[in-house]
């Protein structure tokens, strides 16, 4: 380790501490600084990880899945490098390693658990080759930044080619992810949900037209046939023309109940590809059908890496997300739930979990259009907001830079919304005159600031 490495680590740490004091996140900046001083630092630090490196990619569920994997490993007594905050481009990944290293350039870690933005995989993989890659799903997201899904798939394909030994843990219910993983020729492990779950979409009777990607077979171009959908394009599908279809599922969620949190069993296929056997029962006190996928992906990844799962259940019980993903706050007598909703598939799932709570509630929706959000907010029109037309919702307030667009979106499904552009004022107002059960749904750049506002209010 040279003086350069030390300089890189010390400067990055100083910058990160300074940003924390200044109330900014600063992780990406710290990574950028370290990589500028010592461009080889990520490669060298990553090579010191003793055990497996697991990475998580996919449009939605990356941060939750990745943080769950990290918690599962820590519950088994392992030291883990992880980019908890969701800074998932090259510089954010570099920062996770740099900020865990000693000034002398030593990294004491059993594993690394890293989420990577799909488009950044081709920039990260030259620095280290993961042992396991989780691919959660592929949905439309920020068309102005990433372009169409086809472009994202091309980038992932290139990245996968760079790590030929890597095992891919893929969501078998997503035809796009499955196709991509199968075509790559990598060893595959699949997870999925084989039973149809009432209330998964939350609008089976609503007759809405959820926008679905990948309706056509990626292999031959014919229309896929579905036995049923869970949500978006996730479901049980096959191509009548070329034989492409949902693969055999290695980790299957069954006996699912969505009442009072999540409750399901995981059935695991034995290594000799025989029948599935019940591996464990899951009971989690957070909502959201999509969290079944996150938990399944986590369990499958940990098992695939050959790491024990003795404390998996107790880890889930103790798991308390503190990054604005389904994060709960208590402010005086009021219960506040903050969640990230940044694309149509994610937003629809968020609406489902809001509606799973049948008690009276107020809702604040914050929409920004900064570069990291995507400057194009047309995706708001692909979200099924008509489902918010429900007696249990006492009020809807729109906030953030593009609150005007959000209000208009609701007007065209005949839902009235109050407009308070400033997020803090909006929260204060609804805490004052609301029913004490407040949901705050925000897109990306509003997440950190809203989290801080709520945290400060909670401390009082």
């Amino acid at each position, binding site marked *: 380790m040279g003086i350069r490495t030390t300089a890189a680590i010390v400067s990055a740490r100083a910058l990160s501490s300074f940003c924390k004091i200044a109330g900014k996140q600063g992780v990406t900046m710290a990574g950028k600084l370290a990589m500028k001083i010592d461009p080889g630092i990520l490669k060298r630090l990553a090579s010191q990880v003793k055990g497996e490196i697991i990475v998580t990619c996919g449009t939605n569920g990356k941060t939750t899945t990745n943080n769950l994997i990290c918690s599962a490993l820590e519950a088994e007594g392992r030291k883990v490098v992880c980019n908890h905050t969701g800074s998932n481009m090259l510089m954010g990944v570099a920062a996770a390693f740099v900020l865990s290293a000693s000034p002398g350039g030593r990294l004491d870690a059993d594993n690394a658990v890293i989420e990577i933005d799909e488009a950044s995989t081709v920039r990260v993989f030259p620095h280290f080759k993961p042992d396991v890659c989780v691919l959660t799903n592929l949905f439309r997201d920020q068309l*102005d930044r990433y372009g169409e899904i086809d472009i994202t798939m091309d980038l992932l394909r290139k990245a996968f080619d760079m790590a030929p030994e890597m095992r891919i843990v893929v969501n078998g219910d997503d035809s796009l992810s499955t196709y991509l993983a199968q075509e790559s020729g990598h060893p595959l492990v699949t997870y999925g949900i084989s039973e149809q779950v009432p209330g998964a979409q939350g609008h089976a009777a609503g007759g809405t037209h959820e926008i679905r990607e990948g*309706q*056509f077979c990626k292999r031959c171009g014919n229309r896929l046939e579905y036995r049923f959908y869970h949500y978006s394009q996730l479901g049980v599908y096959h191509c009548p023309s070329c034989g492409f279809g949902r693969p055999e599922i290695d980790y299957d969620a069954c006996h699912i109940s969505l009442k009072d949190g999540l409750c399901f069993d995981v059935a695991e296929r034995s290594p000799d590809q025989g029948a599935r056997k019940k591996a464990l029962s899951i009971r989690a006190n957070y909502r959201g059908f999509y969290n079944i996928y996150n938990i399944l992906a986590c369990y499958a990844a940990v098992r695939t890496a050959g790491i024990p799962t003795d404390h998996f259940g107790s880890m889930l019980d103790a798991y308390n997300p503190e990054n604005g993903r389904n994060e709960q706050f208590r402010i005086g007598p009021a219960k506040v739930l903050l969640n990230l909703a940044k694309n149509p598939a994610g937003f629809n799932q968020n609406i489902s979990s809001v509606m799973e709570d049948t008690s009276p509630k107020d809702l604040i929706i914050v929409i920004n259009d900064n570069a990291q959000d995507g400057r*194009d907010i*047309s995706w708001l029109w692909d979200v099924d907001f008509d489902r918010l037309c429900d007696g249990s919702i006492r009020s809807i307030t729109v906030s953030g830079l593009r609150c*005007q*667009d959000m*209000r*208009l*979106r609701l007007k065209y499904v005949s839902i009235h919304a109050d407009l308070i552009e400033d997020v803090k004022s909006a929260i204060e107002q609804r805490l004052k005159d609301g029913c004490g059960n407040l949901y705050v749904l925000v897109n990306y750049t509003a997440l950190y600031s809203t989290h801080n506002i709520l945290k400060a209010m909670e401390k009082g």
Partner: protein
Amino acid sequence: MKITIGHLYPDLLNLYGDRGNIQCMKMRLQWRGYDADVIEYNLGDTIDFAKTDIVLLGGGSDREQMIVCRRLQEIRKDFQAYVENGGVVIAVCGGYQLLGHEYSTPDGDMEGLHLVDLVTKQGSPRLISNIVLENPIFPYPVTGFENHGGRTRLGEGVKSFGKVVCGYGNNGEDGQEGVLYRNVVGTYLHGPLLPKNPHVCDYLLRHALENRGVTGPLEELDDTQEKQANAYIVNRFAKGKKPQGS
């Protein structure tokens, strides 16, 4: 009185909130007491132009656009007759490009429908921006978002949808955006286009109703929220700017 909106190939062309354009037309008809019927035509379906008052052709990826284009070639004559008889069309992004003579890319050329005199060439980089237009036929600016690789050029004497105040427009060079031909509006603007531009929505509806023999101005609606959302974009991105070349 019922107005029928034909949404062409939403299973293939559905990027950029096209649903919002449909929803906007539907609601603004219903608020005025007209019935609105939306028919979604998928790739195998036969389109009955005689029953259609407004055609919406949305945007898709290049690959999907190619599939749609092949299908539309089969019904080109019917589509052309519809346009020449004053049928209303709103075509956005990929749908707009298909209206012209051709869309050429380094991977090959796609023959268009020859409904409007324009050609499109793929270029780089993609033109991605918030965009504001002006056209004297509309009482206030048209606002939206554009994201396109194609550079479109209009034929001699063909009218554009508007002059670019901020953003790129058809090709980033001549200061024009979109096309207006008979009752066809072609444009790169999404966002989607119509909710923040109720004047454009009503322009389409008025022509559709006129084709059904309903003349005279449309009943006024309370567009306070629409106008505020429109003005927000104008103030943030186009404040103090004049149309290019004027």
